[in-house]
């Protein structure tokens, strides 16, 4: 079964079409890279996948069910990291997670578990306002993972990270995929980084899918990921 599937998904603002009949298929248990230059439609697609925007045409299916008709049930299976700094900076990481845990009816022990998993257990009681960008991204992932969802949707998770932060994030995503069986959908324009972790890929350009399939299949087209990507987007 596909973790995510879109059927003829279209979206636009006034006369501008952002997405045109998008048909995506993200297989379960994959790390799916969603590639595109700035303004290609990646973030809009992610907002549609999460129900933050309503599609003008077409539908989004998560685990075989239509999102618009089963929103709370399906969102329970999704963890999302959408933007930077979407925390309460006056609270500690522990309390930021507690706000979500209480709302979702999750026990306190899960908070400690998840802080340990993202490597913030020793910093959990510090105010988030004093965190580095890397720590904030790890906390963002912790928030996405709080209810142990099988699917993670991450919008540019490596943005603003230094090289060490990028390596830490990469290792964390690989651990989540291999050891915890998560399906990960991530958008990025850091091709080298994606090359190291993704199993499947889609390339979007001007709101249309130019390619989707396995990473190997894309690389076959021009020899490496970068060349193949450039060939599709220029």
């Amino acid at each position: 079964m596909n973790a995510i599937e879109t059927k003829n998904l279209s979206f636009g603002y006034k006369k501008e079409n952002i997405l045109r009949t998008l048909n995506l298929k993200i297989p379960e248990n994959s790390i799916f890279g969603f590639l595109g230059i700035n303004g290609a439609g990646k973030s809009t697609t992610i907002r549609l996948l999460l129900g933050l925007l309503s599609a003008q045409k077409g539908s989004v299916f998560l685990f075989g069910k239509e999102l618009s008709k089963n929103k709370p049930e399906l969102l329970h299976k999704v963890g999302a990291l959408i933007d930077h700094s979407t925390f309460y900076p006056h609270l500690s990481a522990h309390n930021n997670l507690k706000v979500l845990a209480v709302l979702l009816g999750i026990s306190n022990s899960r908070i400690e578990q998840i802080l340990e998993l993202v490597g913030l257990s020793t910093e959990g009681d510090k105010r988030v306002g004093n965190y580095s960008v890397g720590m904030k991204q790890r906390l963002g992932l912790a928030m996405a993972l709080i209810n142990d969802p099988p699917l993670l949707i991450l919008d540019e998770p490596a943005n603003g990270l230094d090289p060490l932060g990028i390596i830490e994030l990469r290792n964390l995503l690989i651990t989540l995929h291999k050891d915890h069986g998560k399906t990960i959908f991530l958008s990025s324009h850091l091709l080298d980084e994606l090359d190291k972790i993704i199993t499947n890929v889609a390339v979007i350009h001007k709101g249309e899918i130019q390619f989707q399939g396995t990473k190997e299949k894309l690389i076959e087209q021009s020899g490496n990921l970068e060349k193949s990507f450039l060939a599709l987007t220029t």
Partner: protein
Amino acid sequence: MHTYLILFRNGFISEFLKHRNTFLLWFVLLVPLVITTVTFLTVWADHALDVINPWRWYVVFNYKPYFHIFVFLQILLICHVNYIEHRNNTWKNLRVLSVPFEVVFFSKIVFAYFILIINVLEFYSFIMLSGYVLSKLRPELGFQDTNYWIEAFIPSCKFIAASASITSILYCVSYYVKSILVAIIIGLLGYVSAFVLFLYTNRSGYTGFPYAQWHPFNFSALAFDSFGTGNHLLNMEYVYYGFIGGVLLLCMHYLLTRYKSVI
């Protein structure tokens, strides 16, 4: 417990966790103590009372400044419950949770209303406590000879119910206006315009601007208007207007917001 009740309870606790370390929450909870302390010290220090019921006089004496200050606290608190999400860009986080949106939406307003009710009850308790202390410290004022416990409690309930319309207006404004400063200014304009129109009225009717009574920010003032005159328990008209208007506006706001995209 019913699933929805559990969700609302969780939503309420979650709102409390967000606000518990904020200056504003403690400020709102401390203001009643400050007002009653000031009025207590004024009466204790040098006030000579020449009234039939010192309790009635004392309660009205406390409520007069409180009524105005309460509206400011209301504006600050309601604007803040939405601003905390605007400032931190956390609406998106809340909208992608597996919790129905109505839980998030109504938990916020219930939390804000709960804090305002605590504020009013706290104020009432401090008045009673300080009046009791005055009866011990200055028995010549006559506090020990009369009481006003129930008569002072009912206006507090009327006041909080009638102010529902102000709460709903502010909740709606601060949801759509991301800047807390602009939202507060809109709230203050509502208060000032209501106050100016209120000046056109007299205590028994409306001799000036004929529509002054329909300004939503005036409902709580008018519900409170006959307080201390003996017949305030009968004056429920503006309590109904304020409360029903507030509930209707809140429901309309919810329906408008329910399907709004979050970009």
